[in-house]
Structure formats: C-alpha cells, structure tokens
C-alpha cells in the first residue's frame, strides 16, 4: 500500500510536471513591451537602446531554454520622451491590446513617472527603465512594480560633488535645465556639495532652445564663483551657456552632469573647455567590455549611452520569467529582485542561456550583467560612475566611482 501510494504520488507529480511543461509550451510566445522615445529629443539614442533590450530577449528565445522553449516577441511603443499623454496612450496599448507581460522603459524621467503611475502600476505590470534617472522615481508609490537599471541622479550628484571636492574646487555656481532631470540633479549635487563644506554661490535654471544665454551667464558670473556646474543637455541650452561663458570669460572651468557628456560638446566649443570635469554612469568592468562585443556582433553599431542598461533591463525580465516558471505579470514582479541580487551564480552579459539552465534546475542566479546590476530595496541600481576630464579635445576617464 505504502509502495503503491508512493508510486501514484510520483506518477501524479510527473504528470503535473508534464502538464506544467505543456502549459508552458502552449504559451510559447511571450510579448514584452519596449517603450522608448523613438521620436523626440533623444530619438538619436533610442534605436540602439531598443536594439540592446531586444538583443537580450533574442538571446533568451534562441537558447530554447526559456520556459522549455518559449519565444519572446518585443513590441515597441513610442514614449516621445516629453509628451506624457502620448506616452501613457502608448503604454496603455501595450498592456491592454498587445497584452505584454512586462515593459522595458520608459526612457525620460517625466514620461516614465506618468506611465508608471497611470498605467503600469494600476495594471500590475512590471516596468524596468534603463535610463530614467530622476531622484523622484525613488520614492513613487510603485507597489514594487517599478525598477530601473540606471542609477538615480541623487547618487550621480553626490559622486560629482565628491569629484569636484577632490579637484580642490570649493566655490561653484550651478545652472540646470528647467525640468525634472535638471532640477533633481542640481539639487542633489548642491546638497551633497554643501554637506562636504563647499559653497554654491548661485543657482539658476535655464530654458532650452533659446538663442541667447548672455543674461543667464551674466547673473551666474556675478556670484563671484570661478567654476560653473552645468546640468543640462549637450545639444541644447547647456552648450549655449558654456559657449557664452567662454566668450565673456565668465568662468575659469566647468563641471558637467551626465547630460552634458558628448563629443559634440568638444567639437563645438574647441580648446576652451580643456580641463572640464564631469561624470557619467558607466564602468570599465569586464561585463561592459563583453557587452560591447556582444552588441557589435548583434549589429548595434553606435556607442551611445544606456545601451548596456537597456540590455540589462531586458535580461532581468527574461530571468524573472524563468525564475517564476511562468510568463505571468505578478510572477515576474515577485522574481526580479531574486535574480538581480545575490545569492546565486553571477551572470554576465551573453550568459543568459547558462542562467536560464540554472534557474530551470532550481538553482539561484545573481545577474551582474553589463552594468554591475545590484538592486536596492526600492528596485534601482546604485551604479558606478566614470570620472571624466577633457584633455586635448577628448574625454578621458580618470577613475571609476
């Protein structure tokens, strides 16, 4: 009897397993949304970001190991980066009509907040943003559905303040582009800098897209600070501010936030900005190098920012699906933290097949990825930053922080 019982139990367990497997087989096409600003102010960056996220999904599909052979279909939507109404409409479509199980995105902080609060969180869909860096996103009521693989600007500001201090600069003027991103970064930088004993002599916002920034620069220069910290966009007002400052000799040196890092700045402004310091999320880790090779092999030619973060966002969703054993919205949400953090086997970029196998065998993984992913309890990376200096017409990395 006992033996018979055992046999039946084993048989039914096997049957159950089979049933689950066939269940997974039946549901073999998993849809994942990719919502990024394919039009708008960062339209030059988003194609590579989307391609990187889709690279991770393809890797998982091609391995044949995801839920025993499921494929993943990415579905794109346009966040526009700036238009919250258009972005939420796009996300609404992904969730209700395309029925995606999770979303990679969005990109810019404003639209990301809008989508998270009005579409994703109410519908119980996980969002993993590769590039929204506003500190405000740390504290939104997300019920555990919002994650990001990009570090918060609160951290970026602190790191930059430390870099500035280390360069022996103690008195700065601050200008920021008048939006969530600029204000958040400027606030965190100023707070950290003052805490470290520095002085912020003046703070002024600037509007993007103006022809003339002489009044803004004049006001900032009147503070008497020798250095100007610029938290803006490299192709927008930020460039105009630095150009005008150079023309009028208002400041001796400049400090740049991550939005200002771009070769076009040097190409436009020339030798005058040699010695400028700044920081940008990123690292020279093994993972980022592996990812660069992977991306090139995958046909992603550019070297724009946030590609690696996008790949990691896609990969996290893949692993969470596998860890929960189901492409179910709630199950993904429950498993993201587990696959992102220790304990478990560390997983680099390009090793998704290995990770999927470990998870299928009931093991544990710690996704490290291209950007050293380690999620804090609110679901965002702490991130590492490159300390940059402009020398001889190029950005040079001084250290990784």
């Amino acid at each position, binding site marked *: 009897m006992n033996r018979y019982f055992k046999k039946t139990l084993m048989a039914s367990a096997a049957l159950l397993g089979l049933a689950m497997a066939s269940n997974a087989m039946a549901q073999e096409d998993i849809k994942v949304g990719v919502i990024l600003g394919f039009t708008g102010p960062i339209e030059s960056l988003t194609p590579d970001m989307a391609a990187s996220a889709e690279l991770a999904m393809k890797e998982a599909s091609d391995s044949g190991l995801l839920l025993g052979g499921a494929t993943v279909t990415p579905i794109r939507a346009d966040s526009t980066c700036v238009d919250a109404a258009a972005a939420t409409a796009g996300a609404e479509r992904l969730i209700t009509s395309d029925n995606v199980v999770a979303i990679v995105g969005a990109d810019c902080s404003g639209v990301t907040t809008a989508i998270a609060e009005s579409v994703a969180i109410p519908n119980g869909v996980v969002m993993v943003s590769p590039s929204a860096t506003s500190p405000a996103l740390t504290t939104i009521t997300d019920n555990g559905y919002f994650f990001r693989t990009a570090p918060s600007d609160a951290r970026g500001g602190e790191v930059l303040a430390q870099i500035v201090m280390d360069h022996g600069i103690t008195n700065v003027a601050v200008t920021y582009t008048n939006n969530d991103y600029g204000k958040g970064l400027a606030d965190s930088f100023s707070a950290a800098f003052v805490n470290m004993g520095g002085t912020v002599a003046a703070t002024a916002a600037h509007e993007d897209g103006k022809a003339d920034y002489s009044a803004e620069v004049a006001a900032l220069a*009147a503070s*008497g600070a020798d250095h100007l910290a610029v938290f803006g966009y490299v192709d927008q007002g930020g460039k*105009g501010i630095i150009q005008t400052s150079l023309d009028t000799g208002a400041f001796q040196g400049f400090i740049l936030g991550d939005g200002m890092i771009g070769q076009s700045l040097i190409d436009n402004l020339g030798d005058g900005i040699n010695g400028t310091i700044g920081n940008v999320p990123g690292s020279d880790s093994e993972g980022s190098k592996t990812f660069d090779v992977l991306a090139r092999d995958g046909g992603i030619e550019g070297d724009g920012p946030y590609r690696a973060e996008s790949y990691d966002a896609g990969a996290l969703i893949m692993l969470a699906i596998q860890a929960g054993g189901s492409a179910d919205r709630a199950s993904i949400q429950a498993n993201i933290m587990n696959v992102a953090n220790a304990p478990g086997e560390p997983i680099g970029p390009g090793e998704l097949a290995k990770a999927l196998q470990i998870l299928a065998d009931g093991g544990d993984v710690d996704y490290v990825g291209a950007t050293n992913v380690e999620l804090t309890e609110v679901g965002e990376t702490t991130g590492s930053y490159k300390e940059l200096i402009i020398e001889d017409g190029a950005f040079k990395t001084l250290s990784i922080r």
Partner: protein
Amino acid sequence: MEDLLNAIVLLCNFVIVPALAYGAQLALGALGVTLIYGILRFSNFAHGDLMAFATMIVILVTWVLQDAGIGIAPLPTALLALPVGILGAIAISLVTDRWVYRFYRERKSAPVTFVIASIGVMFMLNGIVRVVIGPDDQSFADGSRFLLEVGEFREWTGLKEGLAIKMSQALTLAVAVLCVGALFYFLQRTRAGKAMRAYSDNEDLALLSGVDPARVVFYAWVIAAALATIAGTLYGLDKSFKPFTYFQLLLPIFAAAIVGGIGQPLGAIVGGFIVAFSEVMITYAYRKFLLYLLPQEWVPDGLVQLLSTDYKFAISFVILVVVLLVRPTGVFRGKVI
C-alpha cells in the same frame, strides 16, 4: 582706482556690449515694423517670421559659398550671401502683398483685418521655414569670432576683469549705423522717400499731389524686407538661428516700435535700445559690480538682481503695457494703435 576700472569693464562686458548689439538688432527689426505701419497702416505680425525666412535663405547660400570655399575672412561669409537673402525676402513680401494684403487694401478693410491676415502669413512663413531648414539650431557663423578676447584684454590692461567684443557684435553695430544712415538719407533726400513720408502723414493729400500709392507700397515692402534680412542675419550670427526664436523676437520688436512711437523711424531706433537695455540691466545681477565699488561688508549676500532672467520677455511686455497706458504715442509722438 583699479577697482573702479574693474567695475566699469565688468559692466561693459556683461551689460553694455551685449545690450548695444541686441538693441541694434531690435532697432533694425522695429524699423521694418514701423515702416509697414506708417505706410500700410497695420501691425505686421509676420515680420519675425519674415526675418526667419530671409535668414534661412542667407544660411542656405552661405553653406553653398562655404562649400565652394568662397569667403571674406575674417568677416563672416553670410555677409556675401546677404544680397541673395534680401532679394528672396523682397520677393516673398511682394508675393504676399499681391496675394493677401492687396485684396484687403482694395476693399478698404479695417486695420484689424490686416493684422489677422498678417498672422495667417506669419504661420505660412513659419511653416515654409520649418519644412525647408527644420526647427533646429543652425550654425552658419564663420570668420574670426572675436575682435577683442577676454584673455588678450586682461594681459593688455592687467585688470582682473576681461572684456570681450565679438566680431558679430561689432559687425551688428557697424551695419546698423550704415543701414540707418542710408534709410534716413532715402527718406529725407530722395523723391521716393519724400513721397513715402507724405503718404504716411496724410494719405489723401499725398494722393492729390500725385503720389503713386502702388509705388509707395512697393518701396515700403522692399525696405522692410531688406531690413528684416539684415536684422535676422545679424541676430543669427550673434546668437544662433532657430526659427522659433525669431517668432519670439516679435514681442521685443513691437515693444521697441511702440515705445519709440510707431510710424517714427527715429523712434524705432531709440525704442530698440530702450528695450534692450531694460531687458539686460533689469535681469543683471550686480553683486560683483558692487563688490568692486563698496566695502565688502556693505555688499548684500544675495545676487542683487532685480528680476530673474526667466522674466526677460516679461520686461518687454511690461514696457509695452506701461507705454500704451501712460503715453500711447510713444517717445517720439507716433501714431496711436
């Protein structure tokens, strides 16, 4: 003594030089507006976009010249392209006059009808510019950038403060003086200019004296278009070209024309400088300036700034409203809108 010099240089660098250049650009724009108002008797809201259209042509021609390696360094190549831009602006002005304004003129429509029609023309020009060259920043400045650099000035004088004079700023003032001189000569000395003034002062009397209205209107458009091209190009060289900023220039330009007395060429020039200096001086922070002049402990901790730079456009608006309330005719007793 050195402190006093430093204070003066500081003020020159951040207030006087930029305001002079900006004032000259506004004055050239306001002259066009005021001429059209004087002759055709309506406020031409399309003037800002006419400037953008003309500057666009100048930019396109400049690019062609730059590619061909033709230049007049150290002066910007755009100056060579200016005549083509002027012809383009004149052509589009005459076309809009023929197709839009003449219709209303023949029906003797009320001025407000003209104003609304000009808003239509404004949107049309705006659209053409965006289709042809796009809504983004375009850079077309070349030649040498500075007449006087901050570093050179510091070395030369040994002062702590530096003074920069950009080529575009010097050029703006020189060209503005030339244009204004030529315009006044035309209005005061030539037969056509006198006819224009007569027509502006009293239309019926001028018609009775044999002034041909078609010719007067033609001259008005030609001059306004030429001035718009020059003002737009100089503004683009000095700052940057972006179609939307030209549309925004409409407010300070109208403020300048009205402050000076609309319909009065001299008023437009004075008005341009009044608006420019008010904008710059009210939004400038005087802390550093005071530090040079006053003992340290007397200088307040704040930036000593009357209004934040965000309110720059509000200043032209306030000037406009105050003038219309207090002295609607403007400084030089122009017409009342």
